[in-house]
């Protein structure tokens, strides 16, 4: 397949200078794109840098010292955050991990099954179903939060872990992505070959197609994980018990404490800083799954 050839060619072209062909010419940096990218990187990283530095400042240093000069209060901030309402912050962190981890996992499973079915099987109403899903992709989840609340209230499920998990399991975008990926990565010939060998449909899916879809599913998992981790409105409407809050909601309650109580800025900033770590760790761990492209060479074309 041509994509495989491209992948193999890339490393030599991009990263190893000093090969036989004129290194000087290749080393030259194109100033405009580089500058644009650097500016983009700066734009994205500056707020992160601000959070990192601000989390080291004590309450009195926060607004009175130079913005990008580290303060002396990081340890205090950490212990204050841990002590706030008997460590409810760690509870929020655990809740977020549960919502995002389990939610993304279930969502990936649903996406994998439905995306594979939509890509491989031909049945009546397939395109209609897919178009409905596409419409779902265009629908911002925010506007569904209130109807979902009213629906779950009928089932008496509000203010429970399920109320946050359930609505996020079906992700139209995840199904869409899984279908596109399955259509590209699982050749019809492979499925056909499996059938010839007498494998059942479920076996073909789990043993043959699923491994081929892993890079795509990892992407779905990551997208869902980040989306749920950052979600605010759905848990805001669903939950009233702050022991079940995810981090986003918990930090918000620290900010909005009423007019007569100052917002706990240092705690919020430190909390936001810590909340970035799981996401970074997840990206680092999961990166290696993206290199499984090799499997796509199973069929000669």
């Amino acid at each position, binding site marked *: 397949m041509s994509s495989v050839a491209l992948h193999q060619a890339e490393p030599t072209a991009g990263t190893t200078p000093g090969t036989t062909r004129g290194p000087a010419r290749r080393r030259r940096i194109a100033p405009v794109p580089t500058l644009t990218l650097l500016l983009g990187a700066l734009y994205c990283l500056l707020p992160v840098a601000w959070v990192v530095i601000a989390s080291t400042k004590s*309450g*009195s240093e*926060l*607004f*009175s010292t130079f913005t990008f000069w580290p303060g002396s209060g990081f340890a205090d901030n950490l212990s204050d955050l841990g002590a706030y*309402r008997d460590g409810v912050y760690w509870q929020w962190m655990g809740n977020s991990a549960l919502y995002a981890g389990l939610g993304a996992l279930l969502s990936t499973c649903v996406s994998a099954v439905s995306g594979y079915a939509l890509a491989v099987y031909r049945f009546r109403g397939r395109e209609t179903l897919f178009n409905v899903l596409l419409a779902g992709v265009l629908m911002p989840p925010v506007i569904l939060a*209130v109807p979902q*609340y*009213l629906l779950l*209230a*009928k089932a008496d499920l*509000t203010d429970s872990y399920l109320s946050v998990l359930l609505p996020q399991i079906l992700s139209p975008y995840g199904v869409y992505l899984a279908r596109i990926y399955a259509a590209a990565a699982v050749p019809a010939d492979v499925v056909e070959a499996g059938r010839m060998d007498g494998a059942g449909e479920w076996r073909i899916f789990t043993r043959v197609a699923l491994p081929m879809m892993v890079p795509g599913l990892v992407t779905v998992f990551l997208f869902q994980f980040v989306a749920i981790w950052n979600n605010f409105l759905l848990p*805001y*409407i669903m939950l*009233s*018990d*702050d022991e079940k809050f995810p981090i986003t*909601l918990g930090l*918000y*309650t620290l*900010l*909005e*404490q*009423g*007019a*007569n*109580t*100052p917002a706990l*800025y240092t705690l919020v900033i430190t909390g936001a800083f810590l909340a970035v770590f799981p996401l970074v760790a997840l990206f680092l761990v999961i990166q290696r799954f993206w290199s499984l492209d090799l499997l796509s060479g199973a069929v000669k074309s």
Partner: protein
Amino acid sequence: MPYTKRRRLVSSAVAVTLGATALAACGSESGDDGDARSGPVSLTYWTWAPGMDKVVDLWNKGPGKKEQITVTVKKQASGDTLVTKILTAHKAGKAPDLVQAEYQALPTLVSNDALADIGDGVGDAKSKFAEGVWQQTTLGTDAVYAVPQDIGPMMFYYREDLFEKYGLTVPTTWDEFAETARKLKKVAPDTDLTTFSANDSGLFAGLAQQAGAQWWTTSGDRWKVGINDGATKKVAEFWGGLVEEGAIDNQPMYTPAWNKALNTGKQIAWVSAVWAPGTLTTAAPDTKGKWAMAPLPQWNAGESRTGSWGGSSTAVTTDSGNKDAAATFAAWLNTDGDALNALAKEGGIYPASTSAQLSGAFTSPPEYFPNQPDFYQKAAEIAETTAPSAWGPNVNVAYTTFKDAFGAAAKNTSDFTAALDTMQEDTVADLKKQGFGVAE
């Protein structure tokens, strides 16, 4: 539209004249509240006050145990979003038994049938509060929709040391206030007396209230909106004039820049409310003990009136299955001495109950004001002079347009009265859109 009709009915509940009729209508809707209770009751309570769980523990271990009423606190974030959340929950019939609500949110909640009349359940609570405060929870009807919890009477805060340094005297009227601002500009051109913050609608509403504005009133079964009435115009022109001539700053409050200005003495006064010490503690930590508090400047010499900025109440929802029990708790929380002491200590609130304003935590000044030992005596005197307020069912809309219109006006130092007219028009248009009758 049946909704419109009901809205109109409820809006008339606010009219004094029709109060009784509407009450009957409300009563029939919530006829099956299951008040005949047997056995223990457990209630949920949405609140944002810090440390409220500890105060509620006092109840659960004391009077609540005796009466078999257990209350569970579910801590929420404050603000307009909470009102929306309560109304969403109410639509599903799942609102908690008790909610904390700011005074200006009460008409919104009542006009959506979210709050129950707890007049029978709160006993003689009325006698513990100043009349102007209590009136905010009845909305002028015979019903009682909440028990006042904390109030925010407005005051004038200034840097005592810098006033002396620049040779300024504490202004007692707004004219003197303007003179003080101009004089300061002459003595120290890079220093401002204060700023006009277009982000803080509550502050402007309080200033208008002091001047005698009545933003929402009812006539017959219709609402009357008076946001651009004479009193408010006077206030808008006053501040607009100061901004235009450059006598004061026009940057918003509660920003890092504002904190810095307070902390470094670039702004030397603040029109605020009784809770200011808490804010100053974090905003201007280096100037502890250098600030002093005085009554708000007056429009006419010799008067003593103030507005309010902030404050909230405890209300019982129509979804509650145990309204009487909830009302009993609400009354205890906001009138019992121990409860209020704990609220002051844990939540840092300034109590609405008059007897609590001079006891317990309020016998000594706030930590930030060691130089003013009679801080809370003065505060209690000022609180007594709070002008009556008049809130309507779409305060949030008025507040949002305030931020937009006055934000632009303050930035461009343009006409504040035009911004006021925009606020009036948008508020009236929204009321009509919601189906309320509006008297022109």
